[in-house]
């Protein structure tokens, strides 16, 4: 079957769906649509062939063949692939700026408030099949703020489809929160004078913030301290940015004192501490995979191209991030497999596990009954750069159509 035939079949079937869906939104009257493909990756496993039935913006069923009870239209992609919408598990896409520099502890900061779904990188992410983002503050602050999970397709109240508003509290270890700070000597003279200036200073500031949050309690009037208190009590997930093995080891020591079980982001030297990370049950979001042109990674780390594979083999639940332009997430998955990560693990790392690490696994990242109908239709194996995104469906609506975009 040629690519053209697939396109034609898919376009014909979905052309019928699209206007109705657009007119009514993910409304009550949408008829069911079955998407049948040569291969369906569900976010957990692979079906060949497979069928996904969606209705009213949700997945109704996933199986090897069309359910006998099925009504409505069928979209056929005999040589194609269907996957859940991809999730970039660490992103600042669509934010005018990601780093707030006035203070080093800003737990009440909310990037969601300034997220722009019409930003070029967000639209490109959607066209590349990335339908959800773990949207977070940058790593310039020790306690950076509250991350959210959003969809890349515009819509919903205020223009953004929010999957989860309070997804995690972002914390950063290492040199990122120290960069550009006032030098250790001299007297801070203005609001730009920030602590800390060393790695140990970062941890001291973190302990301070934790203490203040705990003292204030979850009911505190100060929303920042209340957020820290919730995180310290385990009521709010925690995301920790850490690249160096030393920072990862520091995290392994601190996590019990802080009462947290965070997801680790960055983990450039995760390959050095894969076993302890696995034993502690900490998930990781790694990326981007970069050829070490200068011989070193960010922050002077020693990268390993198979970092993802080493962590996976040690038993770490692994997600991937493009670490910048989310449209590059497919390259990341393809490279991770090239360097040693098993194919299934790579696909899970950008769908099911990524959604779980983002705290939105109940809504996105897998194709199962009741989940959001976020699907990506590929012309072939999504782990091959030569394959093309044919169509992206978000909440049951066609959010990107390759034929229309041409």
């Amino acid at each position, binding site marked *: 079957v040629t690519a053209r035939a697939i396109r034609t079949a898919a376009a014909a079937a979905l052309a019928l769906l699209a206007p109705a869906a657009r007119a009514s939104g993910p409304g009550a009257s949408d008829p069911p649509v079955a998407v049948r493909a040569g291969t369906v990756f569900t976010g957990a496993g692979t079906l060949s062939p497979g069928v996904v039935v969606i209705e009213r913006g949700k997945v109704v069923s996933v199986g090897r063949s069309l359910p006998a009870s099925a009504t409505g239209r069928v979209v056929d992609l005999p040589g194609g692939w269907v996957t859940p919408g991809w999730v970039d598990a660490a992103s600042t896409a669509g934010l005018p700026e990601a780093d707030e520099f006035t203070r080093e502890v800003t737990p009440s900061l909310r990037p969601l408030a300034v997220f722009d779904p019409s930003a070029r990188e967000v639209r490109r992410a959607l066209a590349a099949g990335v339908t959800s983002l773990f949207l977070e503050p940058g790593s310039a602050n020790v306690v950076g703020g509250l991350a959210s999970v959003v969809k890349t397709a515009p819509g919903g109240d205020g223009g953004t489809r929010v999957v989860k508003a309070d997804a995690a509290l972002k914390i950063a270890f290492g040199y990122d929160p120290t960069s550009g700070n006032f030098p250790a000597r001299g007297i801070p003279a203005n609001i730009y004078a920030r602590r800390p200036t060393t790695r140990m200073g970062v941890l001291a500031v973190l302990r301070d913030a934790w203490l203040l949050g705990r003292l204030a309690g979850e009911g505190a009037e100060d929303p920042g301290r209340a957020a820290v208190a919730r995180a310290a009590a385990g009521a709010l997930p925690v995301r920790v940015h850490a690249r160096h093995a030393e920072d990862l080891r520091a995290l392994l020591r601190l996590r019990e004192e802080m009462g947290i079980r965070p997801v680790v982001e960055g983990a450039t030297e995760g390959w050095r501490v894969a076993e302890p990370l696995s034993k502690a049950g900490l998930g990781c979001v790694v990326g981007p995979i970069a*050829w070490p042109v200068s011989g070193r990674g960010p922050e002077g780390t020693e990268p390993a191209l198979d970092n993802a594979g080493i962590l996976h083999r040690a038993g770490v639940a692994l997600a991937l991030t493009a670490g910048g332009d989310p449209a590059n997430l497919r390259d990341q998955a393809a490279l991770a*497999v090239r360097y040693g990560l098993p194919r299934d693990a790579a696909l899970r790392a950008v769908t099911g596990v990524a959604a779980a690490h983002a705290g939105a696994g109940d809504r996105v990242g897998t194709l199962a009954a009741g989940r959001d109908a976020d699907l990506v239709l590929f012309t072939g194996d999504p782990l091959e*750069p030569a394959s093309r995104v044919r169509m992206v469906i978000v909440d049951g609506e066609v959010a990107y159509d390759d034929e229309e975009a041409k």
Partner: protein
Amino acid sequence: VNGSNIPAAALAALLLATGAAPAEDGLLAVRAKRILPVSGPPIDDGVVIVRGGRIEAVGQVPIPPLARVIDAGDGWVCPGFVEAHAQTGLDRGNEQVPVVPFVSALDALDPSHPAVEDALRDGVTTLLVIPGNQTQVGGQGILVRPRGRTVEEMLVRRGAALKLSLEPVRGTTRAGQVAALRKAFREAVEWREQRERRRAEAAAAPGGTAPGDDPRRQGLLDLIEKRIPAVIYAPLALDCRNAFSLADDLGFNARFVLGDDCWRAADALRARQDAAGGDEVLFALDPSLEAIDRDEDRDEDRVREVAGILHRAGVRFALTTDDGPGPSRHPWYQAAVAARQGVPRDEALRAVTLNAARFAGCADRVGSLEPGKDANLLVLTGDPLSAGTWVDRVILEGEVAYDRREDRKLKRLLEGESSAPGAPAGGGK
């Protein structure tokens, strides 16, 4: 071996069986599940016969009894990749002074630069190393192979092309850039006329001495006198017109490296190609294969797929790579992106092999698997355009120049510095 009365074939079979065949020097047979000669259709279960560093035969041909055999098993074989426009191994791409026709990459290429080794690891067997784009008349490029302790050992051909650029240097406008190029050429032409006059005068006057060559002018004179071609960088579609007229007005041979904006000039590129005739490849594409086409009025932008658009316009091109940390540093990836944009897979492979060789002016020697050409070939674990495929071996002019099993650096890159030596490198299949 004293075996003059034993039939040669029987002897060979015996020796093969005992694993002690004294292979004839320089005779090599590479057997693979699939051979992509690029100059012709794929050959399944084929053999490439190499003798004396050159390809002798390609196809389902018998293996000579005394050949050393490399059996790629389920692997594939294709020509070595050709990098049509690179700054590999140069400490920096350009001089500060914008008109330097007298400099040559020959004097700057560092054979021990990691990028040279990376090129070989990636399956690149020929590179046009040439000054970068931040220049006007940037200097001379050389053709090299990514192997050798000195640049002389690496050298395939010196003076392969002269670099010109239409990207305005700092402090210059586009118009100023073109004016500066024309001025440089006018001066070179005038100097040449003056020299001819003085030579004629010297020949006429008894005892007169003729003026010699001026090495500072040589690069431009070589170009004007068609001893070398120009490689002109045209970042924008509008630069193409200027680049064409510059070459036509002065009557020199030119090839063009195109920025991603040049999808807008597809028709003009096709017309230029048609006027040149033959199977010449006049264009190489910048590593960025997606252009953002901004519509200010509608506040929209569309991604233009440069390789796909030019292919559909009938334009032949070479693909190039960058030296950054992303996948566009790999020729296979660039070819795969072109395939995603609608370029047929065999054409996409051609863009990093034969088309690149034609662009660089070395298709008589490399770029495809044809009898008589240099034996530059890759033993791959599978389809060259697949992300999971590795370059297992690089055969450069008949010798194994790279073997992934012995690539300790790759192993360290993959597993980190603490990795133990011994095990084969690469994720592989």
